[in-house]
Structures are given as structure tokens and as C-alpha cells.
């Protein structure tokens, strides 16, 4: 039970003297609220597992500090930090029964037997492990083993936070949904801070109230799923979240207008002050670009293919060199080759050097 503060935290596996670009985690300052459900989202190699291991103490940071409720624990060992962590692949103590596996973290901390039994029974019930409690853990399926790992993470009631490192990778898709909603329910019930690392946006968006998106060792945005969807702070967030991802197109922006190859797209806000040397792009989600019959005044695009996702269809189109995705309105019969694009001005964002620019009203 703790608030976790990261202060200028950075880590390089090559030591403190390594060049700043090579750091696995670039300096980050942020706060994890007590009781929050967080997802750390990003592609493989973006530093999310490093960040997790820094919090749990498996890795000691090159720079910066970690505070639990204001106390500096940067140099404290994992054992002293009171953190629970669940790993990507199940870790099972082979010689023990399922029950003994679940009891292990409690037993190591010298908790009374009656309390251990009660706690183990409770967690086993939550994870449907009660029928196998007295069986050897080695003989169970990968699913069940990972449930035991999850159980060992959740069995301690006093932990500062429970960290999950892509814990559902080995689990069947159907069970994945169940376990995820179970974790969510557990979060509500137990008032634990949970940090869930994943590269799967669905997993992140369904689990967390706050999603922290990482890219290339940096935290690029942290916000609610809606914020990430509506207002990506970084072009990476734009195309990493959402399916298909955000359209990012180089453009010239002046005042309330953006120009793509001579064609003008209206903007809702005023962008008079843009950094001069920056690479300017506009970003708009495919959900807010509609395909229409070619017409003067519409940006004309060449249709490459149509993706039918069932509830909605997206057209993959090409404008000059840029590839875009756009929604096909219901009942609209798609022309063979060329079409016009209708932008929703309120949903078009401007990015300078990949970072969101807030326009003036």
C-alpha cells in the first residue's frame, strides 16, 4: 500500500557512462497512485520490463530515485521492498504442491500458519485453484501454472504494488479474457496498486484506468484510454493505439489550415506559432476520415484495398506517397479506384517533431 514516485529515474545496462541515447530507460519522473490500475504499454524493447524490474528491485537504476510513500528505497533489496511481481512465463516450485506454492511468499516472511492457510484458501478460490490445491504443481498445464504464479503475486495482502510482466502470454485467448476481468475484479476488491506490462493494446485498455505508453525508453504519454485515443500526445501513441492506427501525414500548417500536396484541410484551432525547423505532421484517426465519392474540394485518394472488420469497414488509400486508412460510411458503395476524403476538423491534430502541438482557440 504505497504511492510510488519515480524521480529522474534512468537505467542503462551498459553502465552509467553509456551515451544517453543507449539508455534502456531514459530519465522519467512520474507518480503511481496508491490503488491505481496501471498498464505499461509499448512494443518489445521499449524499456517497459526494465522499468518494472527497477520498481521491484531486480535491477538497480543507473540514475535517479524511487520513493515508496516518500521513503527512498532505490538501494533496498527486492526482499525489503514488499513488492509482488508476476513474470511472463510461469515460475513454479517443482517439489511443492499448489497450496505450498501459494503459501511460499507468506511462509518466507514468517506469517502464522492459520493466517497463511486462510489467505491461500481465499486466493485459490478466487483463481479456481481449490480443487488442485493438494496436487504437485509440476503436473499441471501451463495455464494452471501461470494461475499459480498470479496467485503467488496476489497472496500477500500488504504489498506496495503488484507488478505483472505480460503475465497472460502463455494463456489461451478465452481464458485470457476471464483472467483479465478477474484481475480487474481483484483490483477493485483488494485495493492494491497494480502495474501491468503488455504490448497488447486491448489488454492495456481493458485492464487499466491509466495507461502509460512507452516508446524507445521514454514514457511518451500517460492517461486514460479515452485520452490516449482522442488526443495522442505523440505520433507513436497515435499509431500504436487504435486499430488501424492513426494516420500521420506530413503537411504544411498555417493558421487554421493544413496543406497536403496543395490541398487544404480545415483545422479547428489556430496554429500560428509553430517551431520553425520542426517536422510538421497532421494526425487523424481513421475513424474520423470518411471515404466519399470524388468531388472537387475533397482530398482525392487512390483506393488500394478495403478491410472489412465486421462492424466497420476501413479503406486503405494512398495520397501521393502517404498511405492512409479511412472509414467507409455504412451503405456507401466504394468506387473502384479514386475517392475523396472527408476530414472531421475537430479530430485533426498537429504534431511538431512527433509531439502534439496545442493550437490556440
Amino acid at each position, binding site marked *: 500500500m504505497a504511492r510510488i514516485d519515480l524521480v529522474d529515474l534512468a537505467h542503462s545496462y551498459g553502465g552509467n557512462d553509456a551515451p544517453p541515447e543507449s539508455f534502456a530507460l531514459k530519465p522519467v519522473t512520474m507518480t503511481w497512485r496508491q490503488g491505481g490500475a496501471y498498464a505499461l504499454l509499448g512494443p518489445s524493447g521499449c524499456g517497459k520490463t526494465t522499468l518494472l524490474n527497477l520498481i521491484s528491485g*531486480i535491477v538497480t537504476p543507473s540514475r535517479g530515485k524511487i520513493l515508496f510513500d516518500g521513503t527512498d528505497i532505490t538501494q533496498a533489496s*527486492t526482499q525489503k521492498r514488499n*513488492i509482488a511481481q508476476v*513474470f511472463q*512465463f510461469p515460475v513454479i516450485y517443482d517439489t511443492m504442491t499448489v497450496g505450498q506454492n501459494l503459501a511460499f*511468499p507468506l511462509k518466507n516472511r514468517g506469517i502464522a500458519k492459520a493466517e497463511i492457510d486462510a489467505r*491461500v484458501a481465499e486466493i485459490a478460490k478466487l483463481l479456481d485453484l481449490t480443487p488442485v490445491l493438494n496436487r*504437485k504443481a509440476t503436473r499441471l498445464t501451463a495455464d494452471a501454472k501461470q494461475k499459480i504464479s498470479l496467485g503467488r503475486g496476489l497472496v500477500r495482502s500488504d504489498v506496495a504494488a503488484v507488478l505483472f510482466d505480460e503475465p497472460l502470454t502463455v494463456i489461451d485467448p478465452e481464458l485470457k479474457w476471464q483472467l483479465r476481468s478477474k484481475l480487474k475484479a481483484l483490483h477493485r476488491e483488494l485495493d492494491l496498486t497494480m502495474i501491468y506490462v503488455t504490448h497488447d493494446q486491448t489488454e492495456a485498455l481493458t485492464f487499466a484506468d491509466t495507461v502509460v505508453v512507452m516508446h524507445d525508453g521514454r514514457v511518451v504519454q500517460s492517461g486514460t484510454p479515452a485520452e490516449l485515443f482522442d488526443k495522442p500526445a505523440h505520433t507513436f501513441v497515435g499509431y500504436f493505439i487504435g486499430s488501424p492506427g492513426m494516420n500521420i501525414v506530413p503537411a504544411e500548417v498555417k493558421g487554421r489550415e493544413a496543406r497536403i500536396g496543395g490541398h487544404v484541410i480545415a483545422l479547428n484551432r489556430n496554429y500560428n506559432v509553430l517551431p520553425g525547423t520542426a517536422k510538421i505532421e497532421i494526425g487523424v484517426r481513421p475513424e474520423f476520415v470518411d471515404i466519399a465519392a470524388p468531388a472537387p474540394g475533397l482530398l482525392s485518394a487512390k483506393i488500394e484495398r478495403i478491410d472489412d472488420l465486421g462492424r466497420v469497414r476501413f479503406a486503405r488509400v494512398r495520397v501521393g506517397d502517404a498511405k492512409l486508412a479511412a472509414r467507409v460510411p455504412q451503405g456507401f458503395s466504394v468506387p473502384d479506384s479514386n475517392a475523396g476524403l472527408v476530414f472531421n476538423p475537430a479530430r485533426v491534430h498537429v504534431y511538431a517533431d512527433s509531439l502534439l502541438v496545442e493550437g490556440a482557440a
Partner: protein
Amino acid sequence: MEKVVNQKAWFLVLPVFLIVAFSAVLPLMTVVNYSVQDTFGNNQFFWNGVGWFKELLDPSTDLGGRFLASLGRNLLFSAIILAIEVPLGIVVALSMPRHGWPVAVCLVILALPLLIPWNVVGTIWQIFGRPDIGLMGYVFNSLGFNYNYVSNDIDAWFTVILMDVWHWTSLVALLCYAGLKSIPDAYYQAAQIDGASRWAVFKAIQLPKMNRVLLIAVLLRFMDSFMIYTEPFVVTGGGPGNSTTFVSIELVKIALGQFDLGKAAALSLVYNLVILIVCWLFYTVMTNAGSERPPKEGVA
């Protein structure tokens, strides 16, 4: 679909079949043949039925007495060296470095004793232990111990056991090291998170994960130590008296010294059987150690 019948495949098995026949089956059958006969030389054989086997297992006869005494010594020897080499090998493996150049150095140093031929090992220790010119023997005697492996049973055993430990602990250590290296880091990390002590990590992770290689180590060390011949023969010659005469030394005396082919053949067969049975016991006990017991009532 029709199953293709092609008898030509037998020709591919034939070489293996012949090799196994000539290298294992035929010699073994010769031994079986000898074990039920007696000979007075001149290639003349007489049927003796199970006579040699009866004599072999009867401690009151010369053959039985010698066999059972050496068998007892051999079992004791194997038990002692297993009790020393297995724990010692595990400790060595646990204290070896995991990364970088020290790994290579350790591996080479550990492998050295394994590369030395048996009779050279015997000769090294034979000289090493001599009270007059051997470093170990001289130091022991200078320290006030009356150490002499030629005249004292205990000293002879001490020397032979120390020699075996020196020669073969590396094998156990290398096997255990391989077993330890195969444990993913996540296990250690999880144990850290779970607050496990060093001892708990060993008991809950390292020992169970080494189970397989330990089984191999125990089997190899048992078989080798149970068949040991050259080293004690070179160091003590089986003495003083018969105190370090192990089964193989006794066997060679009977077969080549006395040329009692029947007795030696019967002894070989029983010897072989004992090894098989003990190995089977080790295998069964160690593979079942981690398996499931019937569920008990009540909470775990």
C-alpha cells in the same frame, strides 16, 4: 493408405546388429557358458551346473568368502565416495562464477583431473602418499600423524577415497553446473520477490532443477566406483592384506591369476547383476522423488 512393406530395411539394421552381437552378446554368452563349466586346462570343459553360483554365495567357501568380503568393501567404498562427491560437487557448482572469463578458467581447472588416465592418477597418489618422498605422506608424518598407506588399513582407505574424490568430484560439479546454468533467471527473480532465503532458493529451485543431472552423476559415479580397478591396484595393490581388494581386483586374481574361468565367469555375472540392480534402485528412487503422492485430506 496401404502400408509399404519393404524388407530391404533389414540390411540397414544389419551392421548394428552384427556389431552388437560381436561386441556384447557373444562375449556375454561365452561368459555364461564358462560359468556353468569347469576346466583343468587343455581346453577341456566339464559340466558344473549352478555349482559355482552356489559356492559364490556361500560365505563358508573360499570363493564365496572372498567375493562377499570384496563386495562388502566395494559397496562401502561406493557409498563413501558418493556421500562425499555428490554434496561436494553441488557445493563446487554453486560457488562457481556464472559469467565472464572466470567461467572458462574454472571449467578448465575442473576438467583437468578428468583427463588424466587412471594408472597415472594411481601413480601420482602412490607417490604423493609415500611417507618418505611423497608430499602428502611426508607432511602428515611431520604433523605427527603416523600415516602409512602400505601398512595401515585406515590410511589405505583414506588414500584411495581421497584419490577418487580428487579424480571424480569434478564430474559431479560439471554436471551440476550444467543443470544450474539451465535454470532461467526468472526463477531466481521470482524467489527474490517471494522473499526466499538462500537455503530456500536451493531447496525449492536449484536442487529440484538439478534432479536429472544429479541422477546421471550418481549413476555414473556409482558404476565407475563399483567397477574401480586401476587406481587402487596401482596405489595399494589391494592391500594391506585384502583391505582395499575390491570386486574387480578379486575378479582379475581369479580369472587371470588362478585361471579359474568358471568361478570368474560366475562372479562376473553376479557382479554385473549387482550393478544393474543398484542402478535400477537409484533410478527408481530418484525419478520418483519428485512425483505425485496420493492427495491427502485437509489443507496443504
